[in-house]
């Protein structure tokens, strides 16, 4: 427990309260030394006063575009300190609203990191602390897994089915059996020309090819088993004690 708390003491990402105070004096150094923002032509005239007036909020930051960039304190740093990714155990204890909010916070952070990555590629400089991106992606993947687990549990309780979409085993025109999952259509099957054209049956002449396919599968399986036996024999020859162990077992 103490170990878990110690590990949890690393901290996670929750950037909801990040706010940029004041204006940017110039359009310089967003996360990288020497980076200049390139506002589109429409905003150029409005962005001009930025350079002269230090304490005016200009067009760019007002629209929320500052969230695509890191905290100005981190601009030009070689490494940025970041905590651990969200663990799946910690996420399982969170309510749906918390997960929903966390998803969007992580999404904004991911957008910021991807912008930083692209800009560092453009400037041919190393991205500061790329492991942050992996941590954010891992956290988002874990949230998705948790939501999916809860959905599957509820569905199992209510219907007894695990899969969200029903389906069945069907044959195709080549005689192969596969899991066909149902699709949503606006019209019933007897009116659906595209669906009618699909053949979920095979004609008698295909039986020969089914037999050939089965023979091929068996041949491959036997070859694989023989190869494993040969490899095991070779290993036993090289390491005699393995043969003794297998005999005793």
């Amino acid at each position, binding site marked *: 427990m103490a170990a878990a708390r110690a590990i949890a003491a690393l*901290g996670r990402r*929750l950037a909801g309260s990040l706010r940029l105070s004041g204006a940017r004096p110039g359009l310089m150094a967003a996360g990288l030394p020497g980076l200049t923002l390139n506002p589109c032509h429409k905003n150029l005239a409005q962005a001009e006063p930025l350079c002269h007036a230090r304490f005016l909020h200009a067009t760019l930051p007002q629209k929320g575009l500052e969230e695509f960039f890191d905290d100005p304190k981190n601009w030009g740093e070689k490494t940025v300190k*970041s*905590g651990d990714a969200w663990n799946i155990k910690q996420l399982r204890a969170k309510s749906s609203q918390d997960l929903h909010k966390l998803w969007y916070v992580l999404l904004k*952070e991911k957008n910021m990191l991807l912008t930083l990555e692209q800009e560092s590629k453009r400037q041919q400089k190393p991205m500061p602390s790329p492991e942050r991106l992996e941590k954010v992606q891992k956290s988002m993947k874990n949230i998705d897994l948790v939501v*999916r687990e*809860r959905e599957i549990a509820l569905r199992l309780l209510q219907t007894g089915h695990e899969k969200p979409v029903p389906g069945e085993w069907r044959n195709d025109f080549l005689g192969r059996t596969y899991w066909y999952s149902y699709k949503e259509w*606006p019209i019933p099957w007897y009116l659906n020309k595209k669906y009618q054209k699909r053949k979920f049956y095979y004609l008698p002449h295909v039986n020969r090819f089914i037999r050939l396919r089965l023979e091929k599968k068996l041949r491959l399986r036997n070859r694989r088993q023989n190869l494993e036996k040969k490899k095991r024999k*070779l*290993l036993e020859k090289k390491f005699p004690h393995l043969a003794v162990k297998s005999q005793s077992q």
Partner: protein
Amino acid sequence: MRLSALLRLAAPPKLPKGYRHGTWRPGTAAERLRNPPGQRRKKIFVEPISREDWKVFRGDTVQVLTGKDAGKQGMVTQVVRARNWVVVEGLNTHYRYVNRDAKYSSTYIASEAPLLLNQISLVDPEDRKPTEVDWRYTEEGERVRVSLRTGRIIPLPLWQRRDGIVPEQWIDGPKDTSVDDALDKTYTPSLKTFEEEIMDAMGIVETRRAKKSYWY
């Protein structure tokens, strides 16, 4: 995105079929130089040891049994399971030149060669003598390494994170969640789906009716 696609993205890229593992981590420049794609080398036979049977970890103290430094003890700095290799700090060294430049004639350093598992033996913590070790279960149910000669438990080495962060000494940054907030349990199980709970919380009422659709 579909779960399977997500998982495939997260999984590390597979190594080629006849890949020969070295002491370098796959993905580094040194490894890419020595194992270029398309290289085929003679197969090296490695005694198969299962994941559960593995006994030596990074940070363990081991004694070298054969070779130039036979009888000396040292700490394990690197383990390569694919080749049953263990690199012990300062032992079984050979000398080489590194960091050669146009202007600088290189540095002469001692570099450790990896040792196989049968050239290594784990050391009893109190005796400080080499012993045979086995995995056993304690009365609490914990799986531990037990020295067969004396019966003492050999504790696992302290596991350090690869990024060098020590959890006890960590100070939260501006974007980090505090420990209490992260461990706070807010989940109450209910019979509503995730979407329904969010809609209730945000006050979204769906008045549109779905058109009749057919599933087949």
